[in-house]
């Protein structure tokens, strides 16, 4: 894996620069220090507790976002009336970044518990999923609709046997983008509006100037995001019916 080679090379260069005294250890501690911090946090179990807390919020937000975005996306795509009322609202809300919702989220859900972070990840997950579902259903080919109707499909079959499977590759791509957004947003939310999670871990260690632990949190975020993306890319390939992408 060439990616792994790059990571090792960067770490080695970083370590060398630290040993040569080129880097201020308070501003950028060497990888060995970060590794020790990793070991401590992992052995103490706190790293996994925080990781689990963040993951749970992401998955909750993603599930809520999916439950809201996919039906709304299908509805907006298939009904001109719904589309006319809904799209302007969506386009007004979409440019507001999820973190701009944090003040309201704190006000509504408080800092303790998962409410505020779940809400932020929901906001983050909703828009990519909605837009991808919407354009997936809008992109159904006319010939497939005509074929379905001349084969006797009723509304239910048009929805479940044509519209949704036809849009599925789009929806899964939306899911991948939403997952990335939600993961980034949960960390931002936890920096401010939480008392657990990887974001909280970073913020707490920053206030104590424990930079190796801050970096340990950052690396965990990066690695987890990477693994989730890899997993969903596989799901994406599995659900794509497009020729060439799913040749077995």
């Amino acid at each position, binding site marked *: 894996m060439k990616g792994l080679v790059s990571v090792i090379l960067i770490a080695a260069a970083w370590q060398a620069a630290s040993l040569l005294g080129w880097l201020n250890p308070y501003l950028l501690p060497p990888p060995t220090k970060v590794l020790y911090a990793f070991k401590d946090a992992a052995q103490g179990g706190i790293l996994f507790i925080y990781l689990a807390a963040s993951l749970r919020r992401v998955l909750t937000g993603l599930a809520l976002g999916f439950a809201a975005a996919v039906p709304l996306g299908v509805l907006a795509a298939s009904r001109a009336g719904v589309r006319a009322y809904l799209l302007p609202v969506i386009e007004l809300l979409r440019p507001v970044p999820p973190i701009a919702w944090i003040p309201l989220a704190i006000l509504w859900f408080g800092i303790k518990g998962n409410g505020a972070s779940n809400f932020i990840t929901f906001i983050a997950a909703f828009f990519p999923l909605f837009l991808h579902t919407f354009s997936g259903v809008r992109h159904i080919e006319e*010939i*497939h609709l*005509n*074929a*379905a*109707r*001349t*084969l*006797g*499909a*009723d509304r239910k*079959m048009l929805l479940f*046997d*044509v519209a949704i*499977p*036809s849009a*599925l590759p789009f929806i899964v791509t939306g899911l991948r983008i939403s997952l990335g957004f939600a993961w980034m947003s949960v960390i931002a939310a936890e920096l401010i509006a939480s008392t657990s999670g990887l974001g909280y871990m970073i913020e707490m260690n920053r206030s104590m100037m424990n930079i190796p632990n801050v970096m340990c949190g950052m690396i965990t975020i990066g690695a987890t995001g990477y693994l989730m993306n890899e997993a969903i890319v596989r799901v994406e390939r599995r659900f794509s*019916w*497009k*020729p*060439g992408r*799913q*040749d077995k």
Partner: protein
Amino acid sequence: MTQPIFKAENVYKSFKDPKSGVSLCALGGLSLEIRQGEFVSVIGPSGSGKTTLLYLMAGFLRPDSGTLLYKGEEVLGPSPERTVIFQEYGLFPWKTAAGNVEFPLKARGLSAEARRIEALKYISMVHLDGFADKYPHQLSGGMKQRVGIARALACGPQAVLMDEPFAALDNITREMLQEEILRLWSGLGKTFVLITHHLDEAIFMSQRIIVMSARPGIVKESVEVRLPEPRTAEVKAHPAFMALKVRLMKSLREEVEKSLAASKGPSFVREMGVIKVVEKEEP
């Protein structure tokens, strides 16, 4: 006398170009009748409204004016009774061959097991045994169209409407599918309407050929094909086959020239008009 399965009376259909707003008349008062159980081909220059006519019969489109009746009733929308075989197959790429054939069976409310059994029957009817669980992109063009045929038959249709179903296939595959369609037609007693720009195909397969005029499309003439049945490859060497081909070729060429002329401006149209009159004087 039994009523025709399809009856079009003075059907007009125009399309508006959404960008320029210019309206284009595809069918200009077309009338025709198709008898129950008939095998009819429709030929005509490209752009003469053949697909439009078929889509009106299928119920994908509605006439602007005039009436289009199916068994005496106005066609209001698509129905599996008058199903379509598309040139580009129109298979659902997210379903296997069997899944595609099961689609109309599911629409008819059959249970999952009954669907599967029934679908395999139709798949075997078009000689695709062993390919039931392949996806469309894993099949060749000819195999895809076989799935299209099986799927249409699974509707239990009264009429099968085909829009240049073999146009994308090589000659051998085309001829094999032609013979298979004929075999299915003679065994089923259903009405088949075939749109094609391929004269041999039209003559070989049909009992009657409808020639469309250049745009705006109307029926220019309707020609009975009197050739021995069942049709086999030898029919193509029959003198009557040749004579009919020459005759239809002329008729078709006139229309193609008219539509070419129309696209080249009015002065040329008049010129071609003269030539046309001269051609018509020949016996």
